[in-house]
């Protein structure tokens, strides 16, 4: 039986070098910096819908009522469908022959660009719905803006997804109101969820140089420009839900740069199990 190598064996040093090379995607020469930023922003879109879709799908067979089980699975399905389009386009823009499946199944955590919000554990049903609502309100505004993209491929995908997301927002805002303005128990759980998740919403509106470059090309909105409309929807719904909006402006961040919480690793271990155990498997 092979023993675990200690830190001084040359093999480990070699592995570390390889890992370091892999984690610095910028070292791979890219033909055009603009395309690189576009690829990055597409990953942020597709990874957000992929990871949230996977998270929500974890409810399948576990929801408090059959209708909710079906509804959550359907929302997850919409998100995965949108992922296929976003990551498919990302692969096309990258120009290295990677498919949507390659990007979903053959990258590790540091190459994922999703918001930290979507990798948060499901918690209870109220927690899941609160996360969904905070995300949907942002996703809705984002897709509205992306329909006016200077890149027709982006505009087409956004138009397709926007109709689905209008339904998601409709459903999640409805349930947040019903559970917030519900029993003492349901209100307490929704307030706990809001307090726990609020610090993960700020990342949605942070813009780095890639966001700015892509916004300047008219491909996608500057994330900052989505905040006012998101804030209006969220305050409107949370007020109707009788919930207290947290005052702290502190925001956890890092997901968009590939710096994730430990939760993403567990998601990927499950989601990518088949490709890790049987590389290249298909059917």
């Amino acid at each position, binding site marked *: 039986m092979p023993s675990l190598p200690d830190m001084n064996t040359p093999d480990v040093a070699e592995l570390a070098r390889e890992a370091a090379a892999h984690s610095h995607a910028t070292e791979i020469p890219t033909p055009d910096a603009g395309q690189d930023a576009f690829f990055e922003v597409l990953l942020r879109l597709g990874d957000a819908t992929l990871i949230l879709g996977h998270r929500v799908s974890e409810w399948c067979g576990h929801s408090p009522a059959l209708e909710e089980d*079906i509804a959550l699975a359907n929302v997850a399905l919409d998100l995965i469908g949108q992922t296929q389009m976003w990551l498919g386009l990302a692969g096309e823009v990258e120009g290295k022959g990677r498919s949507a499946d390659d990007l979903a199944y053959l990258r590790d955590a540091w190459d994922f660009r999703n918001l930290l919000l979507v990798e948060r554990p499901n918690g209870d049903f109220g927690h899941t719905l609160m996360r969904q609502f905070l995300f949907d309100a942002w996703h809705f505004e984002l897709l509205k803006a992306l329909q006016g993209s200077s890149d027709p491929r982006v505009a*087409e995908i956004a138009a*397709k997804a926007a*109709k689905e997301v209008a339904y998601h927002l409709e459903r999640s805002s409805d349930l947040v109101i019903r559970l917030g303005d519900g029993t003492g128990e349901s209100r307490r759980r929704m307030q706990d969820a809001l307090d726990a998740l609020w610090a993960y919403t700020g990342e949605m509106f942070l813009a780095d140089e890639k966001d700015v470059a892509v916004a300047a090309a008219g491909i996608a909105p500057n994330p900052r420009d989505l905040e006012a409309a998101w804030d209006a929807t969220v305050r409107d719904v949370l007020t109707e839900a009788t919930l207290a909006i947290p005052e702290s402006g502190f925001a956890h961040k890092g997901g968009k740069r590939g710096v994730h919480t430990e939760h993403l690793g567990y998601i990927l271990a499950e989601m990518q199990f088949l490709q890790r155990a049987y590389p290249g498997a298909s059917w």
Partner: protein
Amino acid sequence: MTTATHPSTAEVWDWLSHVPDPEIPVISLTDLGIVRDVAWDGDTLVVTVTPTYSGCPATAIINLDIEKALREKGVSNLKLKRQISPPWTTDWISEGGREKLRAYGIAPPIDGTAADGRLIGRVNRMTGGNLTVACPRCGSAHTTKVSQFGSTPCKASYRCDDCLEPFDYFKCI
């Protein structure tokens, strides 16, 4: 196959009108309005299909069914194209398709009410709503939405408050 012996596109449309939707087999793919174009590109028949929902799991089956049906009719060079724009809405469902849905027990989408990205129901909920879904069994307008989603992503679950029949509503999107 030479150009002269191609089946006409009208003939191909007719064949496709007999290919059932895999999830709701009472309506055909053309009733559903997801076949966007049929055209010959030299010796290759190009069929353009649009998905209903972006994550619709039936998409692969639909492509397979189209391929199978057309190969059975002797089409050997076939290309299936996916087109997402303009996006499919329930307004693409044919009049005949709506009737078939109703007869099958699925309330068809209300014509011309496809979502345009507005927050449809928030307004309805606050005003009491003026959109009623009639029971496909007894025709009563006294119905209640049980869940926004039903047995497939394209449907919502309703219940008739008069005859108590639970039914699917092919929701407008």
